[in-house]
């Protein structure tokens, strides 16, 4: 089975999504939006994995995507729990308001 011609472009798409996600992390101040942007970045990476898996004809990339998803699920649940806890403390979701670790 020949691989479709658009597989390399899937890699490009993944880079674009990753960049957009990164940009979002910097632009947005809302913690939840920032977390969503991180999900976007992860998805970019996932797409790259799947595309590589397709182009090299092995399944390892897909397995990695599986693991990334698991980790993303764990990250999202814990991250959102932290967000809730933070919101309870400071009554805001502004990322810049959380600077307790300032040296």
């Amino acid at each position, binding site marked *: 089975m020949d*691989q479709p011609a*658009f597989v390399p472009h899937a890699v490009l798409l993944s880079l674009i999504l990753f960049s957009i996600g990164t940009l979002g992390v910097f632009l947005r101040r809302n913690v939840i939006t920032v977390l969503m942007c991180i999900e976007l970045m992860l998805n970019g990476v996932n797409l790259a994995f799947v595309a590589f898996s397709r182009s090299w004809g092995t399944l*390892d990339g897909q397995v990695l995507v599986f693991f990334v998803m698991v980790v993303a699920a764990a990250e*999202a649940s814990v991250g959102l729990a932290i967000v809730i806890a933070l919101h309870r403390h400071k009554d805001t979701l502004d990322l810049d308001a959380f600077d307790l670790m300032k040296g």
Partner: protein
Amino acid sequence: MDAILFYAFAAIAVLAAVVVIAQRNPIYSAFALVVTLCSLAVIFGLLGSPFIAALQVIVYAGAIMVLFLFVLMLLNVRREEEHPEARGGRTLAGIGLALVTLLVLQAGSVLVRSERSPSLEFDASTTRMAEVLFSPHFLYAFEATSILILAALVGAVVLAKKEL
């Protein structure tokens, strides 16, 4: 046919991704992200990975994003406020990021032009996926993920609960 679908959904994904970061209303961002994720699922399917495509919808769109929406509703988040004093710094960051993006795209082009093994037999059926996932190579990692999930579960409950 596949190519048309691919480019169409790639365009949708990118557009929705832009909406994710451009929107001030996090709920819209979340819905835009769902659109991106679903388009990506379609693209996964086009890349011959139906299992990952299904997982993408189930895990990301079905579980993670619902969780986001839930929290958004729970905290009743509304529009993000404008911060005029942060403007200058952010413009600077934007320029820097644009440069970085160029660099990343450069890397991408290198990757795109890199050699690939030509047209190997590619079978990403669920059976094959299970074989790879449960092979000794990944089995322990797989088991470890279950521990991770459990830990995250407990951690989330402990963190989010008002008092234990």
